[in-house]
């Protein structure tokens, strides 16, 4: 770094921001890539069923399939209910 750089205002390190963002999106996309094709439709169907009873937004249901071993996969369903609907 030069002497002039030293006196310039220190800018945010954008490379580390890029790295953090990439790590998150890449992990997310890899997870999706390894899941079966029916998962998005399953998620929509589950959302529709729950909506029959409780008014929830799209992002309040998450479905993921985790392969824990060759024989066993775990389907994980997370539903966040809005506070006033409890």
């Amino acid at each position, binding site marked *: 770094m030069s*002497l*002039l750089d030293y006196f310039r205002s220190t800018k945010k390190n*954008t*490379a*580390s921001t*890029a790295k953090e963002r990439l790590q998150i999106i*890449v992990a997310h996309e890899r997870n999706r890539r390894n899941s079966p094709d029916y998962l998005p439709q399953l998620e929509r169907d589950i959302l529709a069923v729950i909506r029959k009873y409780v008014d929830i937004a799209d992002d309040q249901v998450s479905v993921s399939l985790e392969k824990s071993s060759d024989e066993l996969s775990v389907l994980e369903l997370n539903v966040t209910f809005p506070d006033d609907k409890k």
Partner: protein
Amino acid sequence: MAKIIVVTSGKGGVGKTTSSAAIGTGIAMRGFKTVIIDFDIGLRNLDLIMGCERRVVYDFVNVINGEANLKQAMIKDKRIDTLFILPASQTRDKDALSKEGVERILNELAQEFDYIICDSPAGIESGAMMALYFADEAVVVTNPEVSSVRDSDRILGMLSSKSRRAEQGLPGIKEHLLLTRYNPERVVKGEMLSVEDVGEILAIKLLGVIPESQAVLNASNSGQPVILDQDSDAGQAYLDTVARLLGEEVPFRFLNVEKKGLLKRIFGG
């Protein structure tokens, strides 16, 4: 048996054709009989980068359709005896490549050549899928920039699931990372992802790092693969890359900022 190497990236403009031309030329310079195939149907450019654009008579699609044979379509390089180019067609639609047709041509080429380099088009359409389908090894060209890294990861997913090796349960495609347009000065300033950052995210073996270089544009301007410009940093970096691809251990160069004189250190620049 010939080794089939795909040069791919997902994202466009990262240096696939430049790298295909350089790597293909570099391998041929070692005496291996090498052919570089342009898979970018409708947007051929390998011929221009290799400087043989005025010698194109027949193309890859003509050969697949039986309108010409390989001998008629392949262009022999004027600089290196063992190097040939198979140009893409300029007019046909993008779906002109059939899996059976490509396989037939690759099998025919494999009889005669040591290395077959497939220059993939950008994207994840049929042309790109066809370029990677039969590969034994893949060179994933990536710029140290978010969209390129993400697309490379996408392509790595395709390599491990949509290739012939994956479908037939054979050992997977050997994946190599080629980082291009690398600027160590910006990395030091925290403005660019470092080799380590990209390596950590993509988690594949580093094959080479090509510095951002004026030599690349000069080379494409004149239709000379940049690896022939052996005085340039990019040319030398590609020579190292080819050596590693052939299994040699070569230390990485051009990763650090050149030492500056006292005046530059004080005033920047």
